[in-house]
């Protein structure tokens, strides 16, 4: 039996195999390169990393946010049901509609969370159509589009804003017979706007939207007497894994009693409900704004140090029964996987000609975010 060093033999073998490419192989390979160069480009693989601004369905990026808030098992990864995908193709310009909107609506647009609907009304040759809706459990966003046989001078946004001679935008949103709050957003497109609706859950006797409901919408356009009316079916179509916390944290300082009543965090919106009780006779003047309002504003920062961008707010101002003043604040969705949020109230202080932010550290509140699904 021969004495064999296997590893040594392996080395020798490897060396013997690494020969230079023979001509027959070299020329065949070069031939192949030539062939490939002149072939038609292969089907392009649509990568989520590239900003694709095509219309229709695209392989959507699953943001870290989506994974943490939607749960590891719900790999959204751009899944859009075939039915929705089909309808999205028919909606023109869907992708470009959200360019000017907040990050939450942009995400909703990119992830196909806007469901097509078909509610329309026509007056004086102008047709308004609620073409798609998104509801994440916090805000309802509706895309309203305009069609007309005649050329129109103003954009849809202008036509809606100018309805009441520029005083107020005329629209009315009704849910179960009660008036809801809403907002109007310019998309930058001539014939499309976004109308937002929110419930009044922050008020003492307010109503809260259910997961599936009808919204009655009435819109006015400049130059047209009759309002455009729609019944919009709304379904919560954001996967059901989001935080709703009722922290109920209270802090008191200088006769202000601030309570953080609710935080809702969805992949599209972060929303805070805050209540502030204040005896206006005792509260220092710097906190007071004209008309008996409080001069308070709020910053929201996550535990990674990032400021969550404010979108808008609304509130109730009367405090006849000393229930406190309610504020509902809307922010962009959380980014990454923050474990906590800090609410930093502040006021603006006037120093002669300058205004500066003065944070009220004593009223600062930090809430840890529960990563488990919480019931509403």
């Amino acid at each position, binding site marked *: 039996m021969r004495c*064999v060093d296997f590893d040594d033999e392996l080395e020798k073998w490897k060396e013997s*195999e*690494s020969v230079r490419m023979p001509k027959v*192989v070299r020329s*065949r390979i070069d031939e*192949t390169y030539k062939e*490939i160069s002149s072939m038609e480009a292969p089907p392009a693989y649509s*990568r989520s990393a590239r900003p694709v601004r095509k219309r229709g369905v695209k392989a959507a990026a699953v943001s870290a946010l989506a994974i943490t808030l939607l749960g590891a098992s719900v790999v959204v990864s751009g899944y859009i049901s075939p039915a929705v995908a089909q309808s999205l193709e028919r909606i023109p310009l869907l992708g470009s509609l959200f360019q000017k909107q907040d990050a939450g609506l942009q995400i909703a647009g990119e992830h196909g969370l806007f469901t097509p609907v078909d509610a329309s009304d026509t007056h004086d040759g102008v047709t308004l159509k609620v073409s798609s809706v998104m509801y994440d459990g916090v805000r309802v966003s509706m895309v309203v589009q305009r069609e007309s046989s005649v050329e129109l001078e103003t954009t849809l946004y202008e036509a809606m804003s100018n309805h009441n001679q520029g005083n107020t935008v005329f629209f009315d949103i009704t849910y179960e017979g009660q008036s809801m709050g809403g907002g109007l957003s310019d998309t930058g497109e001539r014939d499309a706007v976004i109308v937002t609706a929110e419930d009044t859950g922050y008020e003492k006797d307010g109503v809260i939207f259910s997961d599936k409901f009808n919204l009655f919408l009435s819109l006015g356009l400049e130059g047209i007497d009759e309002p455009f009316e729609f019944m919009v079916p709304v379904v919560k179509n954001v996967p059901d894994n989001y935080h709703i916390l009722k922290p109920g944290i209270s802090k008191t300082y200088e006769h202000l009693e601030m309570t953080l009543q609710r935080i809702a965090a969805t992949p599209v919106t972060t929303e805070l409900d805050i209540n502030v009780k204040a005896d206006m006779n005792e509260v220092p003047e710097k906190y007071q704004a004209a008309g008996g309002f409080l001069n308070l504003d709020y910053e929201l920062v996550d535990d990674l140090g990032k400021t969550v961008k404010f979108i808008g707010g609304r509130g109730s101002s009367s405090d006849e029964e000393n229930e406190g003043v309610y504020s509902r604040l809307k922010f962009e969705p959380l980014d990454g996987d923050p474990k906590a949020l800090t609410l930093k109230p502040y006021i603006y202080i006037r120093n002669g000609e300058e205004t500066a932010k003065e944070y009220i550290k004593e009223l600062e509140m930090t809430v840890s975010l529960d990563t488990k699904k919480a019931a509403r």
Partner: protein
Amino acid sequence: MGSELEQEVIRAQAGDREAFIRLLREVESSLYTLARAIVKQDEDSADAIQETMLKAFKSLHTLRSPEYFKTWIIRILVNECNRIIKMRARTVAVAEFPDLCAVTKDYENIDLREAIHRLDDTLRIVIVLHYLDDIPLKQVAEILDISEGAVKNRLHRARKILLDLLQNPVERKIGYEMC
């Protein structure tokens, strides 16, 4: 190199043919070494490589993770080589004998190269992938679409046979092998 390669793959997937050809140039000598060790002939190696490159080009969009480009294309190559081996076995009709080098019934000591050539195709492929191209076991498993355990098993059997062949003089055989 890792992320550079990935970038090239992404470009290639976006339709950049020159990026794809650059990728192929990176792996061409690996492909040749592997092909030759598996199919043992230059002409067949050329066939295997050409088929592999064209198939890779046409199905590049199915590669979901760019960092696995090399594993992915080697897998295509191994499949092509197997296809060629199978076809070769079929086309050598019983009545017809290929050209052979002089056959002797000498007993002789052979080197590892010869021993590997005598291995069964399936065993030879794992030896070639793991020892010649230094491909880790996990990736060999992915290339061959078998479990890592199965790879280890084949390597173990192959080594045993090879050691045996190396340690004991063998009779030269007639076969489908060329000289």
